């Protein structure tokens, strides 16, 4: 059961990451298509996916660029969408903090939603893993996802405008996120946090710069933490 080498962890991560390709690939493909349709050349579309590797924020930036938004506001909005990455970083830090800085930096580069989701689940499931095994697992997940992300973006950019709208690829994003969230709704605290997240996101839409998302996230995290405390006190 416990295969205890970083190599074994890496390959377990790699295998666990592969299913994500079913959702990462259409997402990357879509970005390639939409980016090309928006008038970006191949180099810029690829630079987005290679330098940023954060689909939701890439789409946000692209959308705002087409609306002729001032560059600083495009940047702030897209980074607001990525604020959750800082929370991922903080959440993994206790597990990986003892690793050499270059490894942590490299992992930071590939710390996407799926890397975080799979890794935090793995660390919860196998708390006895060493930090080296833990980071190897995360790298394994990333090693299966990142090339797929680059490749799919490239394919999308080359396909350009030939994919008909009827395929509704836009909805690959919400469906993916929903499928990832659903199994995480384990406790009342998780459910409460998710409910507040949805409500707040819808009610805060009037906020500028996509601040509705970080705003909703902070409220939802406070809700989860408070419900957890409340449940503990009732025991």
């Amino acid at each position, binding site marked *: 059961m416990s295969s205890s080498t970083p190599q074994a962890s890496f390959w377990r991560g790699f295998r666990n990451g592969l299913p994500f390709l079913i959702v990462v690939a259409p997402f990357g493909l879509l970005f390639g298509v939409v980016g090309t349709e928006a008038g970006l050349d191949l180099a810029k579309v690829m630079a987005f996916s290679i330098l940023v590797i954060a689909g939701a924020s890439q789409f946000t930036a692209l959308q705002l660029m087409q609306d002729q938004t001032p560059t600083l506001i495009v940047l702030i909005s897209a980074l607001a969408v990525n604020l959750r990455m800082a929370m991922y970083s903080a959440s993994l830090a*206790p597990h990986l903090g003892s690793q050499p800085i270059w490894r942590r930096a490299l992992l930071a580069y590939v710390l996407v939603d799926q890397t975080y989701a799979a890794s935090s689940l793995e660390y919860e499931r196998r708390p006895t893993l060493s930090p080296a095994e833990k980071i190897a697992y995360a790298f394994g997940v990333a090693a299966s996802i990142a090339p797929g992300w680059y490749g799919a973006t490239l394919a999308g950019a080359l396909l350009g405008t030939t994919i008909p709208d009827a395929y*509704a690829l836009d909805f690959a994003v919400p469906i993916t996120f929903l499928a990832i969230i659903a199994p995480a709704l384990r406790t009342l605290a998780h459910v409460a946090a998710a409910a507040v*997240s949805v409500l707040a996101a819808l009610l805060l839409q009037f906020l500028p710069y996509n601040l509705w998302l970080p705003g909703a996230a902070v409220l939802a995290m406070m809700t989860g933490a408070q419900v957890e405390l409340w449940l503990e006190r009732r025991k």
Partner: protein
Amino acid sequence: MTGYSDLTTWALIVALGIGTFGLRFSFLGLVGDRELPAWLLRHLRYTAVAVLPGLVAPLVLWPQATGGDPDPARLSAAAVTLVLGIALKNVILSILAGGATLYLVQYIAG
């Protein structure tokens, strides 16, 4: 089509890349293996369920592809994905079922 100069577009992409890396590196790089306080960990436990539902909600209710109008196909697909995801806890199966629902309802609705 985007009314930016080549240089501005490149600067934006690079800045977004650096900023995103900065967010991802923030705690991993600066905090190291110091213990984080319990109250912070208690909040971080809910990161995923705090961010992703909020990100998804407007996309489900007001999809850009329909110009922001609620769409039966997308609403059904989202519901099927969520319910199956909770019941079966199988990500891929839920996604496939959600996708199938999307196409099926689109097909029926013409």
